[in-house]
């Protein structure tokens, strides 16, 4: 399936990336944009997922562009989170799960036995439904990823990564004076932004967000949404949400899941104004869900 309408988006983003680069010159390990994003960053073909005997996903094929926010919507239990967890192979941690089909990132099969799952997860960051900062200091929370992957050669470099990640997550101003405080002492919205900072500290290419605002109040939600909008200049963001308004607000692409199947995908504006599928229309207009 060809990604339609992404070319225009992509070129606009390239502009922003360049200006962003100049502004944040200190950032070293971040992916610098290059080349037009006409091709898909993440590409899935005929993905089936089973938990034990139960089939959770049926024959899902989807293309996800780089430097854009793709929203997965659908009623609860429709498989959108399951699919999200396939993209960084977090499903591997559930003993009974089984995945078949093909998922590629930049054309590389992530279920290739030669591929290393630890490195994959460093390239595909994830933000969870409930903020889950580690019971460590704010600094240590962000420094954890770069440390285990050896991304910084010395303390100043590590400090640089931590600061720029916090900055990008829009948290630095609030926590600059108390980097040594426990991550759990922050408010819910701050915790979630800390988790985002933690994810971008390992300079991933893709960031998966599993209903990142569902545990937050409206004000914190608005801040996260702003943040997501800023981040899409540099990352391929895939977000699961049960709020159609949110999908409409922050995403450029939308995929609608129902009962384990991908029903429809396309530009967010198209999906919301002119859904081709009857089920999609029913869901969007609030007839079920």
């Amino acid at each position, binding site marked *: 399936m060809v990604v339609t309408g992404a070319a225009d988006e992509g070129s606009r983003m390239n502009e922003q990336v360049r200006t962003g680069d100049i502004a944040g010159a200190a950032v070293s390990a971040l992916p610098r944009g290059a080349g037009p994003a006409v091709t898909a960053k993440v590409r899935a073909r005929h993905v089936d997922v089973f938990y034990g005997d139960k089939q959770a996903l049926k024959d899902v094929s989807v293309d996800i562009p780089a430097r854009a926010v793709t929203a997965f919507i659908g009623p609860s239990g429709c498989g959108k989170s399951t699919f999200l967890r396939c993209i960084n192979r977090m499903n591997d*941690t559930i003993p009974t799960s089984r995945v078949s089909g093909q998922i590629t990132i930049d054309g590389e099969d992530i279920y290739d036995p030669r591929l290393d799952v*630890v490195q994959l*997860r*460093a*390239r595909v*960051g994830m933000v*969870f439904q409930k903020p*889950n900062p580690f019971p460590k200091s704010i600094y240590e929370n962000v420094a*954890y990823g770069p440390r285990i992957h050896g991304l910084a050669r010395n303390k100043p470099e590590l400090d640089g990564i931590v600061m720029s990640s916090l900055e990008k997550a829009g948290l630095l101003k609030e926590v600059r004076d108390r980097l040594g405080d426990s991550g759990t002492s922050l408010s819910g919205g701050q915790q979630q932004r800390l988790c985002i900072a933690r994810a971008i500290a*390992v300079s991933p290419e893709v960031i998966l967000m599993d209903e990142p605002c569902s545990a937050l109040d409206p004000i914190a939600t608005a801040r996260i949404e702003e943040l997501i909008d800023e981040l899409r200049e540099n990352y391929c963001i895939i977000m699961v949400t049960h709020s159609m308004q949110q999908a409409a607000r922050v995403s450029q692409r939308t995929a609608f899941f129902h009962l384990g199947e991908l029903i429809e995908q396309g530009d967010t504006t198209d999906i919301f104004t002119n859904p081709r599928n009857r089920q999609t229309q029913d869901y969007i207009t609030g007839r079920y869900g």
Partner: protein
Amino acid sequence: MLTYAFAALLALTLVSFMIGRWRAHACVGVSTWKLHSRPAYHASFVAAWVGIPAGLLLLAWLMIQGPVLDRLVMVSLPGELVAGKGVGELSLILSQIKAVAGGTAFGDPAQPILEAGERLKSWRSIAELAMLACAMVVAMLGMVVAQSRIAPEFRARQAVERILDWLMIACAVIAILTTLGIVVSLLIEAMRFFGHVSPLRFFFGLSWEPQIAIRADQVTAGGAFGAIPVFVGTFLIALIAMLVATPVGLLSAIYLAEYASPRFRAAIKPTLEILAGIPTVVYGFFAVLVVSPALRTFGEAVGLPIAPNSALVAGGVMGIMIIPFISSLSDDAITAVPRSMRDGSLALGATKNETIISVLLPAALPGIMGGILLAVSRAIGETMIVVMAAGIIASLTLNPFQPVTTVTVQIVTLLIGDSEFDNPKTLAAFALGLVLFVSTLLLNIVAMRIVQRYREQYE
């Protein structure tokens, strides 16, 4: 006699239940719906009034009778026999009299003692008859009172339920009574001990030789009751036990919680629990039979003299016993860390090992520490292993290849055999018991606090 008294009371209670039921039926005829409460409640009400007061009377009587009769018989003795005698001698006379009364006297005791023995014997039978009679009277009174209240509108159910409430409260209060009993008896005997030996000597003295000071007048020589070597020995053995148990238990817990397949876990967890279920006397025998000779042979092979009852043997075997405590408490603590922590770390590309070391263990640390503290309290209170495998002589050393002694070993050695509660030797056991009780209690309270706070953190 006692058996008869209780049997009679039981029979009377049953009969009164029948009577109560019959009365309840009788007062309304066939129209039982007129009764406020079911007939069984009326019956139970009567039975409770018969059984409980009389039963309590019996128990109280049994508690009081012995000491009262002892007092009486001592007072009845001719003056010249008791004049100017010390506590020890008086209690010797009393036990002679008791032996005469029980028909187990050896030799031929003096005439006044024989007479006193006969007196005690007859008083005892009188007292028992009186007890039976009083109990029966109380039971009958209870029956009369309770029966008179049976009427259709009598709220028997509420009355019975109130009685049940009080019975249950009484049972719950036993826990407090037990603690109180422990504290009071330990305190009283320990205070008596500190009357003989100054607490300073006891807590800071460096020489523990209680066997030498058999007689009260020898204690003043001093130094024999310095408990430091005993405390150090206890500490050394507990330390060795923890050094064995903590790594093994913690690593097992990590593997079981994070790496093991569900089937492996289901098989190994109960297997490890077996270690906790084995009676400690078995570990003691194992230490003597296998571990001690094995260690000695090993020591000889490498040219290291290891005493057969060295701290290493007792501590090592105790460590084996404690492994399951640490492993199951650590396992609980690790698995209680929310899944989201694990996911958060794995999603950043951490390996399991990194997740365990950097995220799970720090998060589970309070729980693990609590478990370790509980295990330490278990180790210092453990008795049979050290009684069988550790030393009796208190030497002040931290050498694990030398024999040392522990608080529990000393308690047992001091108390085994005769138990006259008036010389410092036996009283010292209670002072040690007090130290043991207080230290395990403190460890426990701290451990529970830590564990509780940890639980609240993730709830």
